């Protein structure tokens, strides 16, 4: 008896099939030949699916790739200047095959302003993130766009000693709480 069958037999004495499947994935025990055939069938199906994929589905898939990569960056990675809001917005336009002009029309913002945002010469506002959420069919939430902005701000606040010094010099009657 194979190791997986042994585990299944042991568990099935006190659990139903549903309870077993709800606890673990027990792989099928296949011979080498059966495994080879199963893999070939699957490979053929996958390639057929890829060949038949419509442009609409390709864009949908790429938007989700973009969304989950963005989510992973926001949750698990340090700030990276190559992933600022502007660059991500440009990538979004590329996925949708929109020119900057067309995207500015879609989002109802001036072309020059969109260009400045894409080139990181101007910060976006919250309203733009709402428009982007709507534009993406809500696949990319406004909050995710907004976190791209705050991730950069957080990085800058931690390091910007110059501005901190300049602004501190403008403050009067600061409360003193030094331990």
């Amino acid at each position, binding site marked *: 008896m194979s190791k997986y069958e042994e*585990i299944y037999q042991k568990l099935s004495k006190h659990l139903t*099939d549903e*309870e077993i499947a709800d606890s673990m*994935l027990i*792989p099928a025990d*296949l011979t080498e030949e059966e495994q080879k*055939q199963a893999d070939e069938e*699957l490979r053929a199906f996958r390639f057929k699916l890829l060949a038949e994929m419509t442009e609409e589905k390709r864009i949908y898939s790429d938007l989700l790739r973009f969304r989950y990569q963005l989510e992973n960056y926001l949750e698990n990675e340090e700030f990276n200047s190559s992933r600022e809001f502007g660059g991500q917005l440009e990538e979004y336009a590329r996925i949708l095959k929109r020119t900057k002009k067309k995207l500015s029309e879609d989002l109802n913002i001036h072309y020059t302003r969109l260009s400045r945002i894409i080139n990181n010469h101007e910060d976006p506002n919250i309203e733009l993130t709402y428009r982007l959420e709507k534009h993406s069919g809500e696949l990319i939430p406004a909050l995710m766009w907004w976190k791209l902005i705050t991730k950069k701000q957080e990085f800058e606040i931690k390091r910007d000693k110059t501005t901190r010094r300049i602004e501190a010099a403008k403050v009067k009657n600061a409360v003193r709480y030094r331990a």
Partner: protein
Amino acid sequence: MNLNLIEVERGKRVAGKIKKLTLNQIKKLKGSKKFQFDWSTEEANEVYSIKRSDNNELLGLISIIDVPQELRIHINLVESVIINQGRKKKIDGIPDCLIGFACKIAFMRGYDGFVSLGPKTRLKDYYHNKFGFRHMGTHMVVFLDTSQSIITKYLKDE
């Protein structure tokens, strides 16, 4: 990432996290009494753990195989820790979140959310009925909308 893990007794959601194990961590699973499977044999694959965020308690594991030439993620094994198996489990949704996580990886890597698995024949209906996996010969598969619906259901937005 908000995992849909439910504490059965209180019916309340508990926060969880999923992390990739190092090779050394996988090797250390040999002889673990927490699992039915010998997870140390999965060292050639990517193994991820799911833990409670509040007390770091290990809840389960998933082993996946990246098949880049077919733009596919294959789920090789999934298991909740023994105390969370069967009728007396304390936390519900452990394998569901791990399967959702595999779907997310399959989108992140540009594979159209394509995920395959090869369960025992007797258990196949469960994966079809619960997640929408399609029968594909001996394997079962999900992709695109179905894969996204699994993510939406088990890895909720904040």
